[in-house]
């Protein structure tokens, strides 16, 4: 009995020392969650414009990660949750209008003429429409880069495509936005 106890004790300690960065460790899991869940949420929201589905995607993706924590290496965890979240609505969800708020801080500090403010609001409406008319993957890529400040390489990893493909999306998205706003 005593010998058995010792053996099992030794096993757990060795596990802890060898695999401190295992996803099944709660601290590791929490860290992965905190640094990625908001991006997962935004990513799905930018694509489909549905907040509820974005919340569900976060839950689903991280629960799957927890269930398979023994099989997913920590460095693969990030790509794993984006893949799960993305696959969740593959071909199922139709994109709705993406509604984004505009931070007021820039306007408050500037004392612009009413004409300028009107023109500014008009521009925002055009931008909204232009963003909504972009293809899903161009929109999500563009907004992840411009709002969340994600590097092309990071977005490429999330989407499982090459950096060059992300550059192409960025280029096409910006080009399409300008063309629509300038009315070309």
């Amino acid at each position, binding site marked *: 009995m005593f010998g058995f106890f010792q053996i099992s004790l030794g096993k757990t300690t060795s596990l802890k020392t060898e695999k401190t960065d295992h996803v099944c460790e709660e601290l590791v899991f929490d860290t992965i969650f905190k640094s990625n869940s908001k991006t997962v949420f935004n990513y799905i929201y930018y694509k489909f414009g549905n907040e509820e589905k974005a919340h569900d995607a976060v839950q689903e993706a991280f629960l799957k990660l927890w269930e398979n924590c023994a099989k997913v290496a920590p460095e693969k965890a990030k790509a794993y949750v984006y893949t799960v979240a993305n696959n969740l609505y593959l071909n199922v969800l139709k994109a709705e209008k993406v509604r984004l708020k505009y*931070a007021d801080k820039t306007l408050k500090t500037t004392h612009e003429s009413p004409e300028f403010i009107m023109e500014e609001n008009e521009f925002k409406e055009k931008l909204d429409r232009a963003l909504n008319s972009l293809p899903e993957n161009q929109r999500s890529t563009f907004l992840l880069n*411009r709002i969340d400040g994600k590097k092309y390489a990071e977005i490429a990893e999330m989407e499982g495509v090459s950096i060059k493909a992300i*550059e192409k999306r960025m280029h096409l998205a*910006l080009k399409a936005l*300008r063309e629509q706003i300038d009315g070309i």
Partner: protein
Amino acid sequence: MQENYLAKWLNNELTEEELSEFKKSEEYASYQRILQVTGTLEPPDYDMEEALRAIKNKQTLHSKKVVQLHPFKKFLRIAAAIAVIITASYFYLNTLDEHYTTQYAENEQIELPDTSTVLLNADSELSYSDGKWDEERNVKLKGEAFFKVAKGKKFTVDTKAGTIAVLGTQFNVVYRKDFFEVTCFEGLVSVTFDGNETKLPAGTSFMAISGKIVESAAPNTTQPSWVNHESSFKSVPLRFVIDEFERQHNISVETKNVDTDQLFTGTFSNTDKNLALKSIAAPSQIKYTLEGGKVLFYGDKKP
């Protein structure tokens, strides 16, 4: 301009010349403004702590189900099933009788729980209840058997034709189709046949053919002859002799123009087929042929 130059521009990867060229273009101001306004956009509110709490709740529910409850439940379920099977089979096997059967041309010696022995002749069945043996010494018999009963309480042999009760003795019982015979070799045997009890002292026998009691000659041996691999008959209709021959030699017999009711007295070997055939045919004044594992007895004169 290089490929995807807008993306390169956003990443500050344009060369000096490309950048100055791009800045001179008329779209440049529009691009600048798009980026500036896009930078003020904000996604919907997202409460990370709340989302993490929701996941933790589901996790605990989940892990409880999988890690703790399930394996133990499964183990218990299997253990319970095994316990039920063992208990049930224990009670079932206890109620089952011990059962012995012999085929044609086969004898078997059986030791009963009280050291009484039974020699079972060919094509016979014997059964008794091991569990109830201490309450009553009772065996059921179909066919022929020789009993050496150890002294003790009443020992009974049940056949469909009648019941034999003894205290401690040696006796032989034959219960075949239409043929019932009890021979006592030692002690006293009580035979109940058709509701009438007959006491058989040593050296006497009781015989009933087709439900009728027939006078029978007393044996002059201490054991039935079949124990010594011979079958003996005294004034027994020939058809029972032929039946016994079939049983002992595992061979099928046909008769033609033979009076099988004629009485036969004699002995045949249970080991030597040809000798046995001669032993049966000669005293009955009939002939026989042995072909392809079949025996035909025939009379040469019309009956």
